[in-house]
């Protein structure tokens, strides 16, 4: 199988820095390094999970990929075509191929539009179809996501969180995109509804051959839906690998701490907790060397001074750690 043509999305050294303040007296600007040089690729039809805690930059990464946020530097290419430098006309076309699902079911739908209008908006924007044909296509989408036909004329506030999220999914699928970036799509939902929506997403992926970038801090959900998982910390990728391998034998100390922190629904499990001290430091004062060294229980002298290289440690399992 030709590996190259399998790659749908390629991200190289993506950076997004925010300038917090203009020059201080000492002439240095305060910067927030939300995303600080990450690289990965997505194969057609797979689901890559992107996990990390608040402030790690995963949401910013997702939004940079669909160019809702302009990256500071780096390359993003979809099917070989450059996304970052694309002209406004070109990006409009590219947008049909990649869509995004948002976290908050309450603010991701226009409260003044009916479900029919919301799901039909992609068609309206691109002038694809109108009138009866549009209505039929919208109704087909509403069916696909498991909502009833009468949702067409109703407003978002009449629906529950899970149902609204389905509307968001329908909207994202309208233009038959190849890539769907999912930004915490189930985090705001109740446990039983999360399960429904996750099942729906898996089913839609099988039907349409979609590729997902699944961004979430909910590790159980990520494990269920992703084939590969990337772990981010303070704007950098610290580990990336197949889901099973990453969860059962994590290579990076942060991943290890994350895994051990997840509470398991089984009272008989007695595990030794890896408790991290303190909180993540701010992204605008990243520590020198390895970003995690201050909280790492295995830290060595080199970790403070030198940033570890991102290396393939066997079988496509990458990590950036001096221990390995």
């Amino acid at each position, binding site marked *: 199988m030709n590996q190259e043509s399998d790659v749908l999305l390629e991200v190289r050294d993506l950076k997004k820095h925010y300038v917090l303040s203009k020059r201080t007296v000492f002439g240095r600007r305060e910067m927030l390094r939300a995303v600080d040089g990450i690289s990965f690729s997505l194969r057609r039809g797979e689901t890559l999970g992107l996990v990390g805690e608040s402030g790690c930059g995963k949401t910013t990464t997702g939004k940079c990929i669909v160019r809702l946020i302009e990256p500071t530097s780096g390359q993003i290419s979809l099917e070989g075509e450059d996304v970052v430098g694309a002209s406004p006309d070109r990006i409009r076309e590219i947008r049909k191929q990649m869509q995004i699902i948002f976290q908050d079911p309450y603010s991701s739908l226009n409260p003044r539009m009916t479900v029919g209008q919301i799901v039909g908006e992609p068609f309206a924007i691109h002038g694809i179809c109108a009138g009866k044909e549009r209505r039929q296509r919208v109704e087909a989408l509403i069916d696909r996501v498991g909502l009833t036909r009468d949702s067409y004329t109703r407003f978002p506030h009449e629906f529950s969180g899970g149902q609204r999220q389905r509307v968001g999914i329908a909207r994202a699928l309208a233009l038959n995109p190849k890539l769907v970036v999912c930004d915490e799509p189930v985090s705001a939902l*109740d446990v039983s509804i999360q*399960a429904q929506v996750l099942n729906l997403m898996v089913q839609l992926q099988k039907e349409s051959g979609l590729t997902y970038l699944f961004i979430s801090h909910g*590790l*159980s959900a990520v494990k*269920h839906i992703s084939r590969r998982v990337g772990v981010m910390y303070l704007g950098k990728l610290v580990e990336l690998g197949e889901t099973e391998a990453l969860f059962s034998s994590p290579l990076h100390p942060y991943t290890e701490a994350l895994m051990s*922190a997840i*509470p398991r629904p089984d*009272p008989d499990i007695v595990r030794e907790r890896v408790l991290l001290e*303190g*909180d993540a430091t701010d992204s605008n004062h990243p520590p020198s060397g390895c970003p995690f060294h201050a909280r790492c229980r295995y830290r060595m002298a080199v970790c403070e001074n030198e940033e570890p290289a991102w290396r393939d440690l066997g079988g496509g399992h990458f990590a950036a750690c001096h221990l390995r």
Partner: protein
Amino acid sequence: MMYADDGAQPMAPLLEIENLRVTFDGEDGEVTAVNGVTLSVGQGETVALVGESGCGKSMTALSVLRLVPAPLGAIRGGSVRFAGEELLMKTVEQMQEIRGRDIAMIFQEPMTSLNPVFTCGDQIMEAITRHRVVSKREAREQAVEMLRLVGIPMPERRLYEYPHQLSGGMRQRVMIGMALCCAPKLLIADEPTTALDVTIQAQILDLLRTLKRKIGMAILLITHDLGIVAEVAERVVIMYAGEVVEEAPVRSLFKKPAHPYTRGLLGSVPKLDRKEEELKTIPGNVPSLKSMPSGCRFHPRCPNARSLCAKAAPALLEIGEGQRVACWLYGLPSDREGVETL
């Protein structure tokens, strides 16, 4: 029926809620948010109150301290007894004495639970001086001690910092410190870690366990996360649509869940140790408070529903070893007394 920690003999429960009814004035009139809830918490026991959004667990907790937001919300009936005394009969002043001193509460969002214009030190000291007669210097010392106890580094300095200068995990610790500074017998924690990262959550849960051991405090923990329940709770109460549907010691709940809703909840959580093709879900949605199904409130979504379930609502029935369930699967009306019918 409850058992003490060592299982030796039943002790008088610290908190007893019986048949609590709370209504809420919504957009379309009055709805019953809490419909006859009965539960208890023993001395030094950790009880988890579990349910999804809208099930009434937060309202139940607020009712204990009589903090239900009036005038829209109102306690309509039932009894809440703390250390033998009926809280629903107390005056506002008496409740204010109890709050913070005997029963304390911590909330989900530390940013909005702490006053942004006062320093952390001011807020903790206020909590201390409210219930204890101490000098300002003593209050400050106790505040520092409290911050140290909850694991905040450099507590002397933190006293003078404002909430926005601290991270989410630290703010939550400050709130726990404020709640515990007068060593209450009962701590009500309403989703205390939902808004926090999972590593911070682990720290906070660890802290709660440690403090509980040190102070011998009882905890009523409200959450929707079954993982936390397994780690922290000794007994679990499951609520659905304003009612208690199951109550059990934690091991029994996870090994032998009785109520179909409990089983559905446990099935919905993606397992970390095995691979599943499809998650077992509970079909449908939580009914809105305005249009509750007749009979058992869960029956439209229940895989085991029978015709009886739509007609009559089952009461809680003891099925052994401290496990109680409200479900017709475990006994028909002829076997039981006190059945609720429409």
